[in-house]
C-alpha cells in the first residue's frame, strides 16, 4: 500500500532550511564560538608510535607568561576496571580515558599526552614545546598480520583474545575473534564447479571531513558544565564526557554547533573532555581546535585490513558456498568495525553455505572510528572482486550473476537475521537497464566494472517536539545533528502529516537540555528514525487539533476529519477550517499545542546499491581516470530526492578516493608522512565525472513513508567496481587498496 501513495511534500525538492545561512557564511560553527575571558587550548601529542611514558614535567610550560593551566592524564579520574555503556556498546573505560590523554603508554604518533590553556593560541602552542616528556621508545606494530604474530610486540600487556565467548590465557594484540556460520560450507564448496580464493589488503583511510574537531567548555560556579562543539550527537558527547570525567549527565549540557562533515568520525570524543579539564583547572571557558595534522594523526580513521575471500559456484552460476577471513586493524584500542564487515560481506547474495571469521586487532595507529558503513567497504572490496572473477570464469555477465544469486525477502544472512522486504535485485535490474551499462566502451585501456553493496542501517532513539505557531507554521525541535540535509527531510515528514508546506516548518537542532534523548546522526538513521519521531509528533499535533476543532464546533472528535490541510466535520454539521486558521484559534480553544514524538524503531530497512563505472588507465603512468559513474540505490522512499542524490554522490566520491589514492602512509618508525590534504590525496572535483545517482524505491515496511537510510551504502561498492573496471581495461586484478599509480605500474610489470 505504500508503493503507490501520492504525497504532497514528500518526494519534492524544497530548499533546505539551513541553506541560506550556510552559503552566506552566517551559520555558526564551533570554531566561531566566542566568550568573554575565553582561553585557548592546545594539545601536546606523542612524536612516537609506541613508547612508555617515563615522566611528564609541565613546570616550564606553566611558567610561561600567558599560560593559565596544563593538564595530563593525572587530571582525569581513575577509570578503574569499569566497562562504560555508551548506548552503542560497552567500552573499557580505561581505554576510553587513555585515548583522551595517555597515562602509561603512547600507542600512536599523535596520541594526546598533555594540554595547555593560555591567553592566546600562539602561547598555548609555544607552551606545548616546553612540556618535557621522557619516553622509553618501543618497537611499533603497524600492520594487522604483523600484529597477529605470536612474537609481535604487545600494545596492551593485559589484552587477551576473546574468541567465540572464551578468553585466552596469554596476552595478544588480537582483541577478539567472531564467527558466523550458515549451512555446510564444506559441502557447498564440494558442489562448486569453480572456486576462486583471493587475498586483499586495504589501507587506513580517513573520513576527511572539511571541518576539524573543536570544543569549547565552561564550568559555571555551580559546577554545571557546558560544551559547545561539532559533533554527530550531542547526547553521545554528554555520555562519553560523563563517563570519562565521572560526572553526572544532569550536570553536563552539550550544545551542538553547525557541523562541517562527520561521516562517522565525529561520534567519538577527543578534545571535548580535554577542554572540560582545562576549563575546570582555569575557571575560564577554554576553546580547543584541532588543525588538519591533529585530525589525521589524533582522530579515528577507518581501518586497514587483510581479507581472504573464497567463493564457489556451479557452471550455471549458482553460488554454492562462501568463506571470508577478515582481519581488521582496530588502531590503538580494541573496537574495529570487523563486526559490521562480517555482517555485510555476503549480504547481496542468497548463499546457503557460509563461514565468516573476523578478527579485531590492535596496532600502533589511531583508534579507528566509524566511517560511512564502517567495515562493509573493506569486506565488499574482497567479495565483489571475487564475484566478478567467478562471473568472468563462467562467462556470465557480472550483473546477471548478481541477479541469479540476489538476496531477497526471506533469505537468511550468515550472521542470523532474515531479510524483510529489500531492494537488492531491484538495484541490479536498474543498473542493467541503465543506458550506461549498454553504452559502447571498447577503447584501448578503457574498462567497465560493476559491484554491489549492502548496509543494514539502524534505528535507535529519537525525540521530536513540535510547537504550533498562531500563523499556521510549526517549530520543530530535534536533537539530530544535520549533516546531509536532515532538517529538510525531517521537516518534510511532519509537513506531510499536517498538510502544510516544508517552508511552514521551522526546524531547530538544539542542545541536550532542550529536547528528548536522541542518538547520534549515524547508521543512516536520521531521516528514518528522527523522521519517524517527527511523524509521530505531527500525528500528536493532528490529534490535538482535531480535539480543538471538535470543541469549536461542539461535535464529537470522531466526527472531525483532517485531509489536505483542512479540518471538517462529518455526520451532520457542515463545518470546515484550515490548519492555518485553526492555529490562530488555539488560545480560545484551550491554549497552545505542543506535540511530541519519541521512537526507538526496530524496523530499519537495509539498503542495497549497485554501481557501474568506466575507467581509463594510462598504461605508461598507472593513473586511473574515472570516465563515467552510475550509482543505483534503494532509498525505500526518497523524502527529498536531491539530498538522497547528494548522499549517493558523496558516498561514491569518497569510495573513489579510497579506491584510487587515499591512504595513511607510514615510515618505519610508525610516523604518518602524509598528514595533510596535500599529500592525503582525496579526489577534487577535477578528478570526477558527474556521478549519476539513480534512486530505486522499494519501501521499507518499518517506516510510515517507507524510508530506508541512504547515507552509508553508497561507499560500499566503489572500490570493487573500480578494481573490476581496471581489470576490464588492462587485464590485471588489483587486490590492494589504494590502486595508486605506483601499484598499477607494479601490477603491470612496468616497474
Amino acid at each position, binding site marked *: 500500500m505504500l508503493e503507490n501513495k501520492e504525497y504532497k511534500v514528500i518526494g519534492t525538492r524544497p530548499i533546505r532550511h539551513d541553506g541560506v545561512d550556510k552559503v552566506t557564511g552566517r551559520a555558526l560553527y564551533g570554531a566561531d564560538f566566542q566568550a568573554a575571558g575565553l582561553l585557548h587550548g592546545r594539545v601536546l601529542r606523542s612524536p612516537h608510535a609506541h613508547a612508555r611514558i617515563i615522566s611528564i614535567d609541565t613546570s616550564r610550560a606553566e611558567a610561561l607568561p600567558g599560560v593559565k593551566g596544563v593538564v595530563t592524564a593525572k587530571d582525569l579520574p581513575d577509570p578503574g576496571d569499569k566497562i562504560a555503556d555508551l548506548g552503542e556498546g560497552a567500552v573499557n573505560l580505561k581505554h576510553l580515558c587513555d585515548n583522551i590523554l595517555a597515562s602509561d603508554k603512547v600507542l600512536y604518533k599523535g596520541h594526546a599526552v598533555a594540554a595547555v590553556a593560555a591567553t592566546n593560541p*600562539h602561547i598555548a*602552542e609555544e607552551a606545548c614545546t616546553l612540556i618535557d616528556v621522557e619516553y622509553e621508545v618501543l618497537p611499533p606494530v603497524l600492520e594487522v598480520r604483523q600484529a597477529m604474530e605470536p612474537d609481535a610486540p604487545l600494545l596492551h600487556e593485559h589484552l587477551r583474545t576473546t574468541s567465540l565467548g572464551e578468553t585466552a590465557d596469554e596476552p595478544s594484540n588480537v582483541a577478539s575473534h567472531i564467527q558466523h556460520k550458515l549451512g555446510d560450507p564444506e559441502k557447498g564448496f564440494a558442489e562448486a564447479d569453480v572456486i576462486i580464493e583471493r587475498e586483499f589488503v586495504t589501507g587506513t583511510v580517513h573520513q576527511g571531513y572539511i571541518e576539524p574537531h573543536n570544543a569549547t567548555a565552561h564550568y559555571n560556579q555551580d559546577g554545571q558544565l557546558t560544551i559547545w562543539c561539532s559533533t554527530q550527537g550531542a547526547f553521545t558527547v554528554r555520555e562519553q564526557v560523563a563517563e570519562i570525567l565521572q560526572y553526572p549527565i544532569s550536570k553536563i549540557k552539550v550544545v551542538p554547533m553547525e557541523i562541517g562533515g562527520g561521516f562517522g568520525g565525529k561520534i567519538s570524543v577527543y578534545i571535548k573532555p580535554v577542554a572540560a579539564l582545562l576549563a575546570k583547572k582555569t575557571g575560564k571557558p577554554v576553546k580547543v581546535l584541532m588543525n588538519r595534522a591533529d585530525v589525521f594523526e589524533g582522530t579515528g580513521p577507518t581501518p586497514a585490513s587483510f581479507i581472504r575471500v573464497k567463493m564457489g559456484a556451479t557452471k550455471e552460476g549458482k553460488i554454492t558456498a562462501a568463506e571470508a577471513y577478515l582481519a581488521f586493524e582496530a588502531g590503538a584500542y580494541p573496537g574495529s568495525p570487523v563486526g559490521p564487515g562480517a555482517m555485510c560481506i555476503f549480504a547481496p547474495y542468497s548463499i546457503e553455505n557460509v563461514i565468516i571469521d573476523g578478527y579485531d586487532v590492535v596496532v600502533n595507529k589511531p583508534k579507528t572510528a566509524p566511517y560511512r558503513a564502517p567495515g562493509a567497504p573493506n569486506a565488499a572490496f574482497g567479495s565483489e572482486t571475487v564475484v566478478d572473477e567467478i562471473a568472468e570464469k563462467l562467462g556470465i555477465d557480472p550483473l546477471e550473476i548478481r541477479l541469479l544469486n540476489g538476496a531477497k525477502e526471506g533469505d537468511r544472512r550468515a550472521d542470523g537475521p532474515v531479510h524483510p522486504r529489500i531492494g537488492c535485485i531491484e538495484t541490479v535490474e536498474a543498473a542493467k537497464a541503465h543506458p550506461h551499462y549498454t553504452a559502447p566502451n571498447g577503447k584501448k585501456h578503457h574498462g567497465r566494472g560493476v559491484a554491489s553493496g549492502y548496509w543494514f542501517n539502524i534505528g535507535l532513539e529519537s525525540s521530536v517536539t513540535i510547537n504550533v505557531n498562531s500563523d499556521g507554521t510549526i517549530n520543530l525541535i530535534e536533537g539530530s545533528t544535520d549533516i546531509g540535509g536532515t532538517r529538510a527531510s525531517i521537516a518534510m515528514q511532519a509537513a506531510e502529516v499536517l498538510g502544510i508546506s516544508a517552508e511552514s516548518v521551522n526546524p531547530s537542532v538544539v542542545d541536550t537540555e532542550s529536547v528528548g534523548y536522541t542518538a547520534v546522526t549515524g547508521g543512516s538513521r536520521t531521516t528514518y528514525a528522527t523522521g519517524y519521531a517527527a511523524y509521530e509528533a505531527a500525528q500528536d499535533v493532528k490529534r490535538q487539533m482535531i480535539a480543538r476543532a471538535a470543541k469549536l464546533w461542539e461535535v464529537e472528535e470522531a466526527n472531525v476529519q483532517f485531509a489536505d490541510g483542512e479540518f471538517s466535520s462529518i455526520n451532520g454539521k457542515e463545518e470546515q477550517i484550515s490548519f492555518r486558521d485553526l492555529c490562530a484559534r488555539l488560545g480560545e480553544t484551550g491554549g497552545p499545542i505542543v506535540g511530541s514524538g519519541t521512537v526507538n524503531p526496530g524496523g530499519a530497512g537495509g539498503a542495497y546499491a549497485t554501481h557501474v563505472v568506466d575507467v581509463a588507465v594510462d598504461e605508461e603512468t*598507472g593513473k586511473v581516470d574515472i570516465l563515467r559513474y552510475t550509482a543505483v540505490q534503494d532509498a525505500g522512499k526518497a523524502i527529498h530526492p536531491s539530498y538522497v542524490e547528494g548522499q549517493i554522490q558523496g558516498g561514491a566520491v569518497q569510495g573513489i578516493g579510497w579506491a584510487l*589514492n587515499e591512504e595513511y602512509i607510514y615510515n618505519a618508525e610508525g610516523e604518518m608522512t602524509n598528514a595533510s590534504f*596535500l599529500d592525503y*590525496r582525496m579526489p577534487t572535483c577535477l*578528478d570526477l565525472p558527474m556521478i549519476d545517482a539513480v534512486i530505486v524505491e522499494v519501501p521499507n515496511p518499518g517506516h510510515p513513508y517507507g524510508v530506508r537510510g541512504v547515507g552509508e551504502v553508497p561507499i560500499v561498492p566503489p572500490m570493487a567496481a573500480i578494481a573490476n573496471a581496471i581489470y576490464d581495461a588492462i587485464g590485471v586484478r588489483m587486490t590492494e587498496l589504494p590502486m595508486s*599509480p*605506483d601499484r598499477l605500474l607494479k601490477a603491470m610489470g612496468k*616497474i
Partner: protein
Amino acid sequence: MRDFSYIAATTIPEAVALLDEKGESARILAGGTDLIVQVREARRDVDWMIDIKSIPEVNVLDYNADSGLTLGAAVECYKIYADDAICDAYPSLIDATTIIGGTAIQGRAGVGGNLCNASPAADGIPPLIVLNATCVIAGPNGEREVPAEDFCTAPGQTVLEKGEMLVSMKIPAPASNSSSYYLRFIPRNEMDIAVVGAGASVTLDAAKQTIVSARIALAAVAPTPLFAEAASARLAGREVSDEAIDAAAEAAQAIARPISDMRGTAEQRTHLVGVLTRRALNGAIQRVRDAT
C-alpha cells in the same frame, strides 16, 4: 605561530641592507605562499620578513620579441599567463604557472618565489632551465647573474649569499621554429605536488624535421631541479624520431637520483622520467609544428 617582525622595503639597496644586517633571521616575503606556511608549521625560523612587493624592479614584466623577457622576482603567476605575447613565446612557463596551486594561489605566488623556495619538485624551475633563463641577483657587492640550472643547490638552498636577493629572471627571445613544454605527473588532476616534472624546449630546422637544439629539465628526482644536459645534447642535429626521443629519455633517466617518499617511490619516479621526458619533447615538437 611564532612572532616575527615585518618590514616593507621600497628599494633594492634598502632590502639588501636589511638582509645583510639581519642575516639568517631574515627572509624575503613576496607572495608568501610557501614562507607563511613554513613559519606557521614551525618548519622555518624567521624573525624578520622583508616584503619586497613595493620595489619596482621586482615587479617588472617586460617582453620584447628581440630582447626577450624580464620577469621580476615578485611577479605573480596570473600576470604571466594573462599576457598573450608571453604565452606565445614561452608556453612551458605557462604550462607551469597555470598549475602552481589553484587560482587563488596563482594570484599571489610567483615564479621568483618558486625559484627561491628551491623545492626539488618546483614546477616553475624546469621551464626556466629549458628556456635558458638567467637569474639576476642583487647584493652588497652589486649585481651578478647565475643560470637558472645553477640557482638551487639543495632542497631549500640556493646560491644566494648573505645580503643577496633575486631581482629578476631574464629569458632570451625564442628562436624561430622553437617551442617548449612542461608537464608533471600527479595522481590527481590538480592541487598536488609533482611526483616527477619534466620540461623540454626544442628548436627545429626550417622544415621542422630535424632538431637543431633541445634542453630538458627534470623536477622531483634529485635534491634540486636538474638540467639534463647530456640528454639534451643527444638530440642536437637528430631527425625527429621515436628513437631519438627514446634515447634522450633514457639519458634523462640516467641522471635521476630519486628518493621514495609519500609522493612516490624511487622506481616509479625513474620510470616516470622516461615517460614524461618523451611527452615533454613530443609536446614541444608538436607545438613547433602546429605553429603557423
